[in-house]
């Protein structure tokens, strides 16, 4: 019964999608109505999740625990902010809001499925649907030839990795798709098949998470995409994919961890430097933060690579803290607007602080957290990561993480200089109240977390980290 109760959040999303469909068929509804339906649906799903947040439940194909429920709450919270911020664009541009809202709820549903399923068939099915939703979002955003080509490339790449994953499932046979049984079945399949199965499982994760060198689609799609779509790609799927990646590693790949550990370290180091260097080569805000995302993913991979309890918790906390800071940064981006158009280039946002000092201050604050400046949450996670490196006697990784950050910081400084210190060269539109409200909310939330880290409901994790 508890399990069915646990699925209420999914039912809320499903009901929202259904109601959106009815609204579309019925006709006569505005973009605001569609967004209202989507927001109510998301809020309902968050409420249902919080009601059961202390319970672990399991039904066929699904199980949930505190991290997976927190993953959903965080993802749904980000989706809610995203819907609030994106409404204006749809109203002004007169775009198909119903499809956007429908896809948003569907993406959230997929994310929750990915984070809470214990069956590879359901997991890869949800990932395939999520990839399709990603493609449709790009389609929604298509305004240029460049983006059209990028979305085609993305579609082909993701099809390839889904095909690999499907082959893995085929070799694994359906009766072994359950996560708990799949490890034994994969090991018994014979060396070559075992490696093939593992490659299929891992590559789709690494591709969708955008770990270097499979990161090319991430920066390519985010840079030209419109802001609401870039926000989605940067923030929404990552949390659930990361949680699922950790779960698969812990439940399925643990026996192979000695081999995978080295691979994760290499990919982590590569991501750190690719992200840090890539961020410095662009003047496009979205691309800079997409590269920063690759850097942060690299750090998460390095932090988690040993897959001890401490390192896993550190990785989960890192993702949560990163998402909070990035959500704040993207919220400020919604304020970079002139004559109804979002501004993405550093040359166009000069002097923003002169007209919107509080939004600029908030941007500086979130970026300071992202740069790991004490005592902000970004610092705790680097501190925890360093503790993990010391625990596993990998002291060199500390130098990699901090060295990568030193490389990344000039890119952040470019943004700060343009926003805070440059002369004003654009007439910015009035910043909506909803942006200020979200900035205040996120700033207060991060300040509360600085004062009371326990609020993240991770005291158990901190106890383990402090261990």
């Amino acid at each position: 019964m508890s399990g069915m109760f646990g699925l209420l959040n999914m039912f809320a999303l499903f009901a929202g999608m259904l109601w959106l469909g009815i609204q579309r068929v019925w006709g006569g509804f505005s973009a605001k109505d569609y967004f209202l339906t989507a927001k109510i649906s998301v809020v309902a799903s968050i409420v249902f999740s919080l009601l059961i947040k202390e319970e672990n439940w399991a039904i066929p194909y699904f199980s949930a625990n505190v991290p997976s429920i927190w993953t959903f709450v965080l993802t749904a919270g980000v989706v809610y902010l995203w819907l609030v911020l994106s409404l204006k664009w749809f109203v002004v541009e007169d775009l198909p809001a119903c499809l956007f809202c429908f896809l948003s709820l569907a993406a959230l549903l997929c994310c929750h499925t990915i984070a809470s399923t214990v069956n590879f068939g359901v997991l890869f099915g949800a990932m395939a649907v999520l990839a399709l939703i990603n493609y449709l979002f790009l389609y929604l955003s298509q305004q240029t030839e460049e983006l059209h080509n990028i979305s085609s490339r993305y579609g082909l790449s993701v099809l390839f990795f889904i095909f690999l994953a499907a082959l893995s499932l085929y070799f694994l046979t359906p009766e072994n798709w359950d996560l708990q049984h799949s490890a034994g079945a994969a090991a018994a399949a014979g060396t070559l098949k075992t490696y093939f199965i593992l490659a299929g499982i891992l590559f789709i994760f690494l591709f969708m998470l955008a770990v270097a060198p499979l990161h090319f689609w991430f920066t390519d799609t985010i840079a030209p995409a419109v802001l609401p779509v870039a926000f989605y790609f940067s923030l929404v799927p990552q949390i659930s994919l990361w949680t699922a990646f950790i779960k698969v590693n812990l439940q399925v790949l643990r026996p192979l961890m000695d081999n995978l550990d080295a691979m994760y370290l290499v990919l982590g180091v590569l991501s750190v430097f690719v992200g840090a260097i890539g961020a410095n080569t662009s003047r496009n805000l979205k691309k800079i933060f997409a590269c920063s995302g690759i850097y942060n993913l690299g750090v998460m991979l390095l932090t988690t690579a040993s897959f001890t309890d401490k390192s896993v918790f550190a990785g989960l906390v890192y993702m949560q803290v990163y998402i909070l800071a990035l959500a704040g940064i993207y919220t400020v981006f919604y304020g970079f607007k002139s004559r109804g158009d979002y501004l993405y280039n550093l040359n166009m946002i000069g002097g923003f602080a002169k007209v919107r000092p509080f939004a600029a201050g908030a941007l500086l604050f979130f970026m300071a957290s992202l740069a790991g400046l004490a005592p902000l949450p970004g610092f705790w996670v680097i501190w925890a990561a360093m503790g993990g490196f010391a625990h596993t006697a990998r002291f060199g990784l500390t130098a990699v993480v901090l060295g990568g950050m030193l490389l990344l910081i000039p890119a952040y400084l470019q943004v700060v200089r343009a926003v805070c210190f440059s002369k004003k060269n654009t007439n910015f539109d009035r910043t909506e109240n909803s942006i200020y409200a979200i900035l205040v909310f996120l700033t207060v939330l991060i300040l509360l977390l600085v004062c009371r880290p326990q609020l993240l409901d991770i005291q158990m994790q901190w106890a383990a980290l402090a261990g």
Partner: protein
Amino acid sequence: MAENLLLIIIFLPLFGSLFVAFSRDDDAGVSRNAANVSVWIVCCNILLILRLFSLIDVNLDAIQVFGRIPWPIAPGGSLTFGADVLALLIVLGIHVALLLGIFGLKDVKESQKGILFSSLLFLSAAGGFFLAADLFAFYIFFVLMILPLFVQIGLSNGSGQKTASRFFLYNILGAFLFLISVAALYAAKNDAIMIDHISDIQMPRKAGIFIWSGVFLAFVLRLPVWPFHYWISSVNTALKNPLVFTSVSLMPVSGLYGFIRFWPAVVPEEISSFVPVFEFLCVLTMLYLAFSGYSSTSSRDKLFSYIFIYYLLYLLGVFSPTDVLQRNIAYSMFAFLLVSAAMIMIVFYIDRESEKLQNSPNGILCLQPKAALAYALLILAGAGFPVSALFWNNFVIVSEILNTDVYIGTTAVFTMLLTAVFQLQNLYDLRDKSCLLPGQEKIRDIDNLRFAAGTIIVMVLFLSFIKPLWFVY
């Protein structure tokens, strides 16, 4: 009582900065409200610091008052704060210096509010840093000082934004090196570490070299020692805002203080072989600064050279193999902070007024009798004449340096003499009536507020010459 007072001193400017952020500008964009709030906050904190002096035993050298803030991230579960005479004198000096900087801001119209907001944040961070009693709190506030100062430099220096980035990169590099060392120290001790017991931690020699080198570089990156000096010289030459110049000039105090706390008596054995090289670099930098100050015609450049030569003198004192100098450095540095901040306030005013003259600023002080009086008294005190605590204490510091190494001591004395000479020469030039050219009718003397502030500072310095802690009751 004392515990709460300590925390109020640290966090009052932080709350004050919120009031500054929400204060209204007038029609001309001038933030009188912000300036008034800042002055009140700093004055209140100065009174609280004076009160705290009376609550501690000033004859004791150990950190005495402990205030704790529970924080689960910190090893040991809390951030610990404490105070001794050294820390409180520096904190008091910094507060007075920033107050004078705010007075100097009166004629600057650009980005006043943002700079005042950041200054109060900087003051809060500096307070936390100097009053930190455990290593983790020390690190947190060491890093926290960077961001507000970066914002101040960037806001005050719109055209030369790269200097702000340079400042940030140098300091963040130091912060990361320090972070690695702090993490390694915690790995060695596995418990909360009080900063006055850091030198007691036992560790293998290799780890010691690694840790102490990180600590050394972290602190030295905040000091104007060649070849780590680049950010200081590039930032200071570009600044035209007296408050920001004062704040930037206070940054090296954190490096000095770090050295005093980390190795109060002797440099750790693991890196002691590098000390002579480092002292040589210090002396070389002092000589370079002294000659460049002597050859420069700008009052600001001379002031810059003066300030950083004295920091290097204190650094040499800190590196002397004794801990008896700690009090002398504290008394001398307190007087030095006051002198240098008051001089910055007046020199920046003179500089701004001199832009109205068609030629050099020579002779300008003949038209500014109040500025001339205050500036002359400050130069006499700053040059080491027996009118302030600088006189006695610098005498002791130099004696100890001479006692340790006669060549280094002699060079230090020579640079101090040269500093005094170029400061007096500057005073003479600025008062040379024969150089005065047309345009003099536009020159204004300093206002009563700044004159009163300068005079009070001179009186405080004179009282500290008689009894360094005369304000403790």
